[in-house]
């Protein structure tokens, strides 16, 4: 009796072990294959990129430091001028920050409406949920540079094309993040408000917004950080602000490196500053949620 049960147990342990080992081997094989494909993709991708680049990777590697060194040494020679140059480019910096701030503001308002209209359980027109989601998907998919270039052609250079372009992208991106938060909102206050005869607008303003505001603010701050970078980079293709000044300073080449250095310093300082400020406030906003 005992022998039989023992034998049966040993047999099943053996089969379990062998099937487990087979599974482990198969998983390792798949894992190894995935890794191999990944490595092949990386290496061949690197080689293609290297081939199609004007200068090669290995020839350029030791030159990485040259340009920063040139800029820094020239800026150091003319260090007396730096405060003046920083003051000179400060208005451009303000423009870059303004572009980011306005587009975040407009984008957040747009994203707010898109998210509420696209959230299950909250939408004013439940049939149109899919449509509003597609709208925010498309707005998110269009890179800022596309809209910015088209608008620069129509409206002329300056901050407005960049502002509109970033705002459209922000509305789409925030619309998606906001609607994920809004779908998790407690519906009881909304129902309570509905029972008093509140309109859709009042239900959202009084029932949903107080719940989601900390998260929305935190996402908007993160977006503001991203948008500062975007507005600087769009300046480079002609949309005003610090990026535009940087392109002009770069076009002059040696002799104006002190100007480039001043712009680098301003941009770096701004990004780090807003990075720190926004991460501190975001922490405070999301910490408050647990209580």
């Amino acid at each position: 009796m005992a022998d039989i049960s023992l034998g049966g147990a040993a047999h099943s342990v053996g089969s379990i072990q062998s099937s487990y080992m087979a599974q482990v081997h198969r998983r390792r094989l798949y894992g190894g294959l995935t890794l191999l494909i990944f490595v092949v993709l990386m290496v061949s991708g690197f080689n293609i990129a290297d081939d199609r680049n004007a200068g090669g990777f290995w020839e350029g590697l030791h030159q990485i430091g040259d340009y920063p060194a040139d800029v820094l040494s020239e800026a150091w020679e003319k260090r007396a001028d730096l405060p003046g140059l920083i003051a000179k480019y400060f208005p451009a910096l303000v423009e870059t920050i303004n572009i980011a701030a306005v587009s975040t503001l407009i984008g957040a308002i747009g994203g707010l409406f898109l998210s509420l209209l696209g959230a299950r359980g909250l939408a004013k027109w439940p049939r149109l949920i899919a449509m509003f989601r597609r709208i925010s998907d498309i707005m998110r998919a269009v890179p800022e540079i596309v809209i910015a270039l088209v608008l620069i052609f129509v409206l002329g250079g300056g901050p407005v094309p960049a502002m509109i372009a970033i705002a459209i992208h922000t509305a789409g991106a925030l619309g998606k993040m906001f609607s994920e938060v809004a779908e998790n909102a407690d519906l009881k206050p909304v129902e309570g408000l509905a029972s008093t005869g509140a309109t859709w607008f009042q239900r959202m303003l009084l029932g949903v917004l107080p719940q989601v505001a900390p998260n929305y603010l935190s996402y908007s701050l993160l977006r503001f950080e991203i948008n500062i970078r975007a507005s600087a980079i769009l300046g480079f293709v002609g949309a005003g602000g610090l990026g535009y000044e940087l392109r002009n300073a770069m076009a002059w080449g040696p002799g104006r490196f002190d100007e480039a250095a001043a712009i680098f310093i301003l941009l770096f300082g701004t990004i780090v500053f807003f990075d720190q400020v926004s991460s501190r406030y975001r922490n405070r906003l999301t910490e408050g949620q647990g209580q």
Partner: protein
Amino acid sequence: MTAADLSLTKHNADKLFQRKRLIGFGIPAVIFAYLVYIFFAFDISGLAGRANLDNAVTLASDSWSHKVHVTRDNRSGEISYAVEGERKGRYPEGQRPGWVSGDEVTTIDLGGDHIVRYLPDNRTEIEIPGFPMIEVQAEGRSLTSNLPADLPDWISASNRRIGITTPEGRITMTGARTEVFNYFPGWELFWFTLDSPYHGQGLGTILFGEQIDPTRSNIAGAISDWWNNAMWRHKDVAWAIGETILMAFLGTMGAAIIALPLAFMAAKRFSPVMMLRAATRRVFDFVRGVDALIWTVVLARAFGPGPLTGALAILITDTGTFGKIFSEALENVDQKQIEGVESTGAKPLQRYRFGVIPQVVPVLLAQILYFLESNTRSATIIGAITGGGIGLMLTQAMQTQKDWEEVAYYIVLIVVMVMFMDWFSGWLRGKLIGRKD
């Protein structure tokens, strides 16, 4: 509850309401004031003056239509026909569009009874319904015409140049040449250029019909002619999109590979030396703070323009971002699993492999895939600056201010590419770590 308590509560409640009211009106007021400031700082009122609505009209109409030029060189008398007036869109010798007829007198039928005739000796006749026949004679560098003194606004005329714009087409005349532009909807020669034998053949004929080009099979020939289409450059466009995706892929994955070991050095739990931790974090902050824009500029000096420069710029910037995110994920790792693995006698490397990595991989993969999609968009912009990928083609097409249908084509492709990457990264995330919802 005493009266004193009650009045205190009421006082507090009043204060709370006051504060709420202040916030309720204050925040919108601040936003409004800021927008007013922006209105003046960005000179929005002057925007109407700077905006060029003609550009908008050209953009809107040219992006879905094309024009065929019929050009007479008034010196040689030669007449040429070309799509968009480009050499690569020129009709081969002896061929011309069906709406042009006649030998001595070339008659161009623009449709809607608008007819232009190129007569011998550089004379031109233009028939427009509801307007007397216009006759123009080109001599040397000047023009003589029978146009009346007061002209409708769709005709502009001087003795050097006459321009007529009608809904059916446009005519410009100078001493040197006479040109007629006939507009058609659609993207011209999208499949085959005029010199390809497959131009004008239906899909059925190419797939199942007789062999058109004796030297090549129909399908291979058609694909090769389409791929090498000089007008739309499908091959270059495909390469450019590939380059953009490659930049995003190399940049994101390279950054993740570099950031992972560094993140261990920056996480409190795995790196006991405070100095090392702080130093690594400062490095992350630095490379993140020196934005992709500056990295692109700096790297372009060392490596020259191209996709590698863009990939490296993305790589360096994202190493900082990933390092920060990864080290935060590593700090939140559950100690119990590591202890469990340790109790089996695992060495430190094995503890990381079996105790830590399985916990953080889902978080890291989700972030990497999200960045892959977002970097496709960044790569478009960086490509425009550093000179690689579809971003460069788009900026070039915009700068020539001519081929708006190509601009429209690139925009559509970019949007499709980004949406594809969005879908793809979501799909991959679903496969690797399970659906989020």
